[in-house]
């Protein structure tokens, strides 16, 4: 299949390209950006006038819920949601049931994902067996089976010695470890950020130091072991400062923030909106401002959807009993664009946070556009709108704090390895 995309505003953050040009695609790869070879006869010509062509989005956290939670979502439903959101590469955490701690499970997941021919899936393996935080998982074997890194997802790891050994062992094989800093004891039983909102609503609170105490431990262990660590879902101002200092000191750490924490704060809980029940909790407006600044100045490398499909029954409960999580794959691009609009950041720089920079963290050859590379691409209308309507979401998870809003941008076409995996007509 040869595709000729005409007159697109090509934005490739990795190379700095931002120009109206053509794209020629053949045999699943980008043949040319700009002048199309004279002998190129496309099977399909796409007029992309007024549209932006960027690398397919790379999402560092999207739960697919298989195996074990098929009543919440399936690989097919979530990968369809991914490509509808322009996401062509995603990382899934290991907190499935059973957790991803055996090579067979990882191989099956990769095989099933591949057979759907939608987005690319990179699994994180469980750092400890059953995510129980006691015995190390078979990291090297799991890596060979396809795990790109190792993580405890949101399962608490309260034993610091286990963490030390996990980092040492991972460093032996130069395998990255992804950790969400949260002290299991300080966050125990909490459901909301420890501040005036939780006090007003009488919600059990999680102090910001639940994040920073754990982060301090992680950073000291990184210093001691030399392990490569990616810090997931930062939520607090002080954590951003700590990472800034750590990176200044040359520690091999990267980090990300979720779309929810970039745009929302604890005040959005309003009158117990369970859609705002998230992990980590939405923090104060000052924390949110620090996250936005950190993402803007490069302290925070990437923006992710933290896509967590939750079934309605699990959300239709009082705030503290509701299952945490929100759908996000289809909102990643619109909320990146909103952030760019609100901050005045050039589109190229904003898109880097969801394409080239997360791809660099993964160490994969996606998230950029260049001749010879796989044609993973998102074509979107920057003037269009994405209505956040539960009936229109492809994901089986229909809960998000952004319900009812109209977000900027509209994905029109998604290509994975040169195949059209999603397409929708113009509409605002």
């Amino acid at each position, binding site marked *: 299949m040869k595709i000729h995309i005409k007159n697109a505003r090509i934005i490739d953050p990795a190379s700095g390209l931002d120009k109206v040009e053509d794209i020629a695609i053949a045999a699943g790869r980008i043949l040319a950006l700009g002048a199309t070879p004279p002998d190129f006869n496309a099977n399909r010509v796409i007029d992309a006038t007024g549209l932006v062509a960027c690398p397919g989005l790379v999402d560092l956290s999207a739960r697919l819920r298989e195996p074990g939670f098929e009543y919440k979502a399936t690989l097919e439903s979530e990968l369809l949601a991914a490509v509808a959101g322009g996401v062509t590469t995603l990382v899934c955490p290991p907190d499935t049931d059973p957790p991803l701690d055996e090579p067979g499970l990882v191989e099956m997941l990769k095989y099933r994902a591949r057979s759907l021919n939608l987005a690319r899936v990179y699994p994180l393996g469980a750092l400890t067996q059953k995510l129980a935080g006691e015995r190390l998982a078979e990291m090297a074997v799991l890596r060979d089976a396809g795990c790109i890194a190792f993580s405890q997802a949101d399962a608490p790891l309260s034993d610091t010695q286990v963490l030390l050994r996990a980092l040492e062992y991972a460093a032996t094989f130069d395998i990255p470890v992804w950790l969400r800093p949260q002290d299991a004891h300080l966050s125990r039983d909490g459901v909301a950020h420890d501040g005036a909102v*939780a006090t007003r609503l*009488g919600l059990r*609170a999680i102090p910001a130091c639940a994040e920073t105490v754990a982060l301090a431990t992680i950073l000291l262990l990184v210093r001691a072991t030399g392990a490569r660590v990616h810090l997931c879902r930062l939520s607090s101002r002080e954590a951003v400062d700590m990472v800034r200092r750590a990176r200044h000191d040359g520690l091999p750490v990267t980090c990300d923030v979720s779309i929810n924490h970039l745009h929302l704060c604890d005040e959005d809980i309003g*009158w117990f909106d369970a859609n705002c029940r998230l992990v980590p909790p939405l923090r104060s407006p000052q924390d949110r401002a620090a996250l936005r600044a950190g993402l803007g100045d490069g302290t925070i490398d990437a923006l992710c959807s933290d896509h967590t499909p939750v079934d309605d029954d699990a959300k239709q409960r*009082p705030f503290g*009993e509701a299952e945490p999580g929100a759908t996000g794959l289809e909102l990643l691009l619109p909320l990146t664009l909103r952030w760019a609009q609100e901050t005045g950041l050039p589109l190229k720089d904003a898109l880097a946070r969801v394409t080239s920079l997360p791809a660099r963290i993964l160490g994969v050859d996606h998230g950029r556009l260049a001749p010879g590379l796989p044609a993973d691409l998102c074509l979107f209308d920057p003037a269009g709108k994405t209505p956040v309507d539960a009936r229109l979401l492809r994901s089986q998870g229909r809960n998000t704090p952004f319900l009812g809003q109209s977000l900027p941008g509209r994905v029109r076409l998604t290509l994975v390895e040169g195949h059209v995996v999603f397409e929708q007509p113009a509409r605002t």
Partner: protein
Amino acid sequence: MAPNPQLDDNGKLCHLLTIEGLNAALIHSILDTAESFVGVNEREVKKVPLLRGKAIFNLFFEPSTRTRTTFEIAAKRLSADVVNLNIGASSQSKGETLLDTVDNLAAMGADMFIVRHSESGAAHFIARHVAPHIRVINAGDGRHAHPTQGLLDVFTIRRYKKDFSRLAIAIVGDIMHSRVARSEIHALTALGVPDLRVVGPRTLLPQGVEELGVRVYHDMEQGLKDVDVVMMLRLQNERMRGPLLPSAGEYFKHYGLTPAKLKRAKPDAIVMHPGPLNRGVEIDSAVADGPQAVILPQVTYGIAVRMAVMTLLAGSST
């Protein structure tokens, strides 16, 4: 923030979920209505026909005797049909969701739900999901709110002290876990109390409590200085998680209300407590049974206040 879900488009009360967001005029109108019911308690026939034909369901997902009984008495005095349900021991333990339980009870013809639940926001959740004609009264949700208790407390204060705009009031004890304290704070700030204090150790005072409009004291003697009203709280041991206090004895020494500490307050200060009392933990018997205590009148007024709330809500039915 989203509009207050207990008020309709005209600012009229359609549920009572929290005192937050109620203005002084609305609170006074509830208290005025309650005044008219105080006399019913003293009559030979303690009943008025205002809610005849209405079905009121007491949905208690958390154990309670005192509050459930006062709601039941209030409803019966208004001639309503009352159904008491101790849900914790039935449907929920069989795995039914809260929403299914509520839907089933609504299908049995309920006009009003009185809800007590261990989770903050449970009453809001139920109010959001019930049919528009059903009224919801929050009888205590987690640590969040206990609005009828807050109202009966300010009703009691109004009876003894008249003018809220000149009062100094101290709320003492376990603010962290207390839905009563939150409701009292909202009510008293709405009524214009100029000097509202909370007193307790740091482990029992939640983050940012000052933003609710109170001044924080850790020293009880300072916190009680020249106050007109002392509102004592029970230690909510059942809601405490983790080590918050070393011992009941140490707590009593620093934060228990004794005759000596009460001397710091104005001579005519009244002492209140939402009950049940823990004598020797948060209050000395000499104070609890002393001339300044108005703890039993609080209970009596509680019935009149609950009658008032039920009547006002039933009158706003669509």
